Each structure stands twice: as structure tokens, then as C-alpha cells.
């Protein structure tokens, strides 16, 4: 029973990996608690957004992921 976390941009550096599995079900409080330290703090930053299965959450604090879901953690972008 697992959720896949995808770390983008500098969050991948902080996580030390581009993705990992985490137990389901998963809400925002549990996620921040599990990803402790600098990574957990970075996630709390208001510019970090969250997508579940490719759909952006309007508010990341309503996260409710279950088995098989893919949760992407998205820091501010920079392209071009």
C-alpha cells in the first residue's frame, strides 16, 4: 500500500533522489512529518505546489492520496 512521491527541481536535491515510495493513505501533515529536516521545511514554503496524478491541487493541505497515487512536489518553475 504505497504512494509514489516525485521530487522536482531543487526538492530532488534536498531529497537526494528524484522519487520514492511512502505508505498510503497519505495526507499533508503526515507527508511533512515523514520528510523531516530541510526537505520537510521546504515543502511548507508557500511557493511549493503539489499535483496528484498530474492534477494540481488548489491547496496542498487538502492532500489525500491513496495506494497507487503519484504525488508530485513542485518548487517554483524556471524555464526558457
Amino acid at each position, binding site marked *: 500500500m504505497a504512494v509514489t512521491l*516525485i521530487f522536482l527541481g*531543487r526538492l530532488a536535491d534536498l531529497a537526494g533522489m528524484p522519487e520514492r515510495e511512502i505508505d498510503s493513505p497519505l495526507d499533508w501533515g503526515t507527508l511533512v512529518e515523514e520528510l523531516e529536516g530541510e526537505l520537510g521545511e521546504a515543502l511548507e514554503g508557500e511557493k511549493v505546489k503539489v*499535483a496528484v496524478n*498530474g492534477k494540481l491541487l488548489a491547496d496542498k493541505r487538502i492532500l489525500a492520496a491513496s495506494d497507487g497515487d503519484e504525488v508530485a512536489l*513542485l518548487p*517554483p*518553475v524556471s*524555464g*526558457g
Partner: protein
Amino acid sequence: MLDIQLLEKGFSPGKALGLFAKAHPEAGGIASFVGKVRMDEGVKALELTHYEPLTLPGMHALAEEAQARWNLDGLLIWHRVGVMRPQAPIVLVSAAARHRRDAFQAADFTMDHLKSDAWFWKRERRADGWHWIEPREQDHDDLARWR
């Protein structure tokens, strides 16, 4: 006609533009922009990361917004991802329209949004390792022009 692509490998902007022009014989004008990895001193490589489930749909939504705002015959958006060397093309935008202003505005609008409002993360490799790049203040100002 929309031609939206995320590319893992290098491409030739001149060739792509030639084909795009051929595909739009009815357009009176085509405005284009090619962005390349700059040869800034000390930069050895650039990496663009994306998250395809968001990045590609985001590019399509951007193209549709441009089509809704201007009268276009076609719009091409090609964006590289992965590791690139200085001078490699990163992005090509090309807007075909009956009238010149529509083509220019659509290309300009699309570039401003790709630059600071699309799902890409960019880092540079310098002698001392990789560094994440944030959009410049100017990029945010450019984007604000369209609101």
C-alpha cells in the same frame, strides 16, 4: 494547427521553421523566436527538468490560450528537456497568422509564459557543480504585461 512537442534530443530551428511555413501557405506572416543556451562564462551545461503529466498539458493549454486571444493559422511550440550544451537551441516558438501583429503578439505571449509560467526547472553546471536558476525579476514583469 498546433504542433506542441517536448524534445529529448537536439533539433534544427531553421529546418523546423521551413516546414512550419510550408504547412501554412495561407498565413501572411510568421513570427518566431529561438532561444539558445547562452555562452555565459563558466557555464558548461544546462539541464531542464520537466514533469510530463503537467508540462505537456500546460503547453497545450498555453497554445489554446494564444489561439483564443489572437487570430492564428498555426502555432508551434517545441521545448527541449534534458542536458544541453552552450549554443544548443532550447525553445522554438512560431506563430502563423494572416496579420503581422497577431503573429508577433502570440509568439511574444507564448515565450513569456514558457519562460516563467511553465513546468520547467533549470539548472546550470559550473566548475563548482550544479546551480538552480530562478526566473529573473524581468521575466515576471514580462508576464504581467499580458494580464
